[in-house]
């Protein structure tokens, strides 16, 4: 990047400037992280610590939030609890100390699994369709190419609630409402536009000469696509897939309007985790933490391609 000659160039900021800029940015980064760190800390607090005033930074870690997230409990009389055998597992023990017994598993795990199935299903579909179309748009003369590309992008821009009204009616008619398949198709259609635009950018960067050389060697166009272009585009495909995954994972508007039980994903479920007398904040925080950790990991993996992703592949570096 900066060669030895430009290292002392007049445009390079001075050491003081750098240190000043650095400290301001770090300050912002720390402030911006506080809400996230706070919610993750809350996940390990006991309900009393979570709602104490002033807010507690130091506390005795507890897994009660996670227990409450994964189980449903019912209140019992102390006599009844004493009549039961020894507590089964840690969560039962915590529940009994609050005069409750574990009644069964909560809905969090099924909702989380729904999220996984729907996110991965729609990602695979969107990336597969997107790769094919992106190659088509990148390499062939397609009539009305610009209009088609704009049409594809504009579908992503539509307000979700505006789309949800007819989708609701349509799914009700064909029996797709509250099914995973319906949600997968819906998320695929939203993600495919991003996939086409992003992947077109990546494929545009692969020199045509590679395929042409392969075709001189006797490959058909399709073989050249599979054996030459796809391996070259692996990074782009992976980055696109992560973007699609994150979108489908995070989506709320369609999920809350079009699903109620069977196919409900985690985002509409987490806010309705309630304990006795209001929201059970440690449980909500625990659910939030488990839900956000994969995104944090993916963001770190994706950091080099974030810019492309948020500008539909237009800005590269």
């Amino acid at each position, binding site marked *: 990047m900066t060669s030895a000659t430009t290292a002392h160039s*007049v445009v390079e*900021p001075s050491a003081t400037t*750098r240190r000043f*800029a*650095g400290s*301001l*940015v*770090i300050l912002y*980064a720390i402030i*911006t*992280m506080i*809400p996230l760190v706070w*919610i993750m800390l*809350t996940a390990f607090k006991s309900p009393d610590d*979570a709602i104490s*005033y*002033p*807010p507690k930074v130091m506390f005795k870690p507890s897994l009660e939030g996670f227990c409450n997230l994964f189980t449903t409990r019912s209140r019992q009389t102390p006599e009844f609890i004493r009549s039961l055998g020894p507590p089964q597992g840690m969560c039962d023990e915590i529940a009994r100390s609050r005069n409750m017994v574990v009644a069964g598993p909560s809905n969090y795990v099924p909702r989380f699994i729904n999220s996984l199935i729907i996110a991965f299903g729609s990602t695979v579909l969107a990336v597969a369709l997107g790769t094919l179309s992106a*190659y088509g748009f990148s390499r*062939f003369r397609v009539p009305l190419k610009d209009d088609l590309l704009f049409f*594809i992008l504009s*579908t992503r*821009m539509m*307000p*979700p*609630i*505006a789309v949800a*009204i*007819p*989708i609701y009616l*349509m799914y009700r008619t064909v029996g797709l409402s509250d099914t995973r398949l319906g949600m997968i*198709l819906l998320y*695929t*259609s939203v993600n*495919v536009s991003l996939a086409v635009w992003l992947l077109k950018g990546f494929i545009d960067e692969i020199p*045509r000469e590679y395929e*042409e050389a392969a*075709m*001189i060697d*006797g490959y*058909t*166009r399709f073989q050249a696509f599979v054996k030459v272009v796809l391996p070259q585009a692996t990074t782009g495909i992976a980055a696109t897939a992560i973007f699609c995954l994150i979108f489908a*994972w*995070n989506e*709320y*508007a369609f999920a*809350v*309007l079009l699903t109620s039980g069977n196919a409900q994903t985690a*985002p509409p479920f987490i*806010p309705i985790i309630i304990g006795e007398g209001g929201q059970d904040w440690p449980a*909500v925080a625990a659910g939030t933490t488990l839900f956000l950790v994969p*995104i944090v990991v993916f*963001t*770190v993996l994706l950091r080099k391609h*974030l*810019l492309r992703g*948020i*500008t539909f592949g*237009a*800005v590269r570096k």
Partner: protein
Amino acid sequence: MNELSASSRITYRAVMVRPGVARRIRGLSDKTLAWLFITPTILLLLAINIFPLLWTIYLSFTNYRANRANVPTIWLGADWYRSILTDPDIWAAMQVTAHFVIWTVLIETVLGFGLAYLIDKKFRGHGMWTTIILLPMMLSPAVVGNFWTFLYQPQIGLFNYVVAFFTGRAASSFQMLGDVTLSPWAIVIVDAWMWTPYVMLICLAGLRSIPDYIYEAAEVDRATKWRQFWSITLPMALPFIMLAVLFRGIENFKMFDMVNLLTGGGPGSTTEVASITLKRAAFESWRTGYSSAFAIILFVTVFGLANIYVKALNRVKSR
């Protein structure tokens, strides 16, 4: 044009070499392949986006109600459009949206550009800190909205505690989400927290696209840093800033998930942005025809802005 004729020439040579392959090539000409590759995507979008859109347009001219599907549908013409576009309540919702859009975009642009400017100074470890700053924008807006309601709790919330700590007011003396004057700002704060990194990232790309030699020339001309900022940095980063502003504007114009979880439009209708009004009409009052008309109005607005956005995108692309 050129690449096509070139490739067909290559194909021709391949045909000469292997007659067995020739049949397959003839079966799958480039044109066929192009359509084969593109049609599945187009079909999916037609089925899940365009067909529903056309249906919405049809419904917006009728009295259809999704919860009373058996009532015969009556054609109403543009009645719903007329009533929405003269309704002071909907107009008020648009102004709530305007407040939200203008302030979030303003704050995010100022903060985002400032951060990008500082990060562009390439201090030690700027890569790691940039990644940390970017985290909020990748999170689920719904989950973010939900956990901010916890931070905004009047007595126990961290936000109120911090504000109380610095201003000396009692932490329970104000309610960010329950107060008519504060709640419009509560949603602005969360959105700014979440999306400033987005503007920052695009501005950073803009700043990095400015070649060094322009600054070097300015130094030769003895232009002050202040002057350089106003006549080089800002104008050259402007297309990128515009891109970020337009996209955030569109996104926040149709904002639903975060606001729905933070305030649900309340208290009263002080934070009822357009999408929440639409949701209430469509999925709570079940006035399907009416809400379809409103959806079309919002859609046309977004579609018009999307045209401008793509234009801005192409301008940035040519850089």
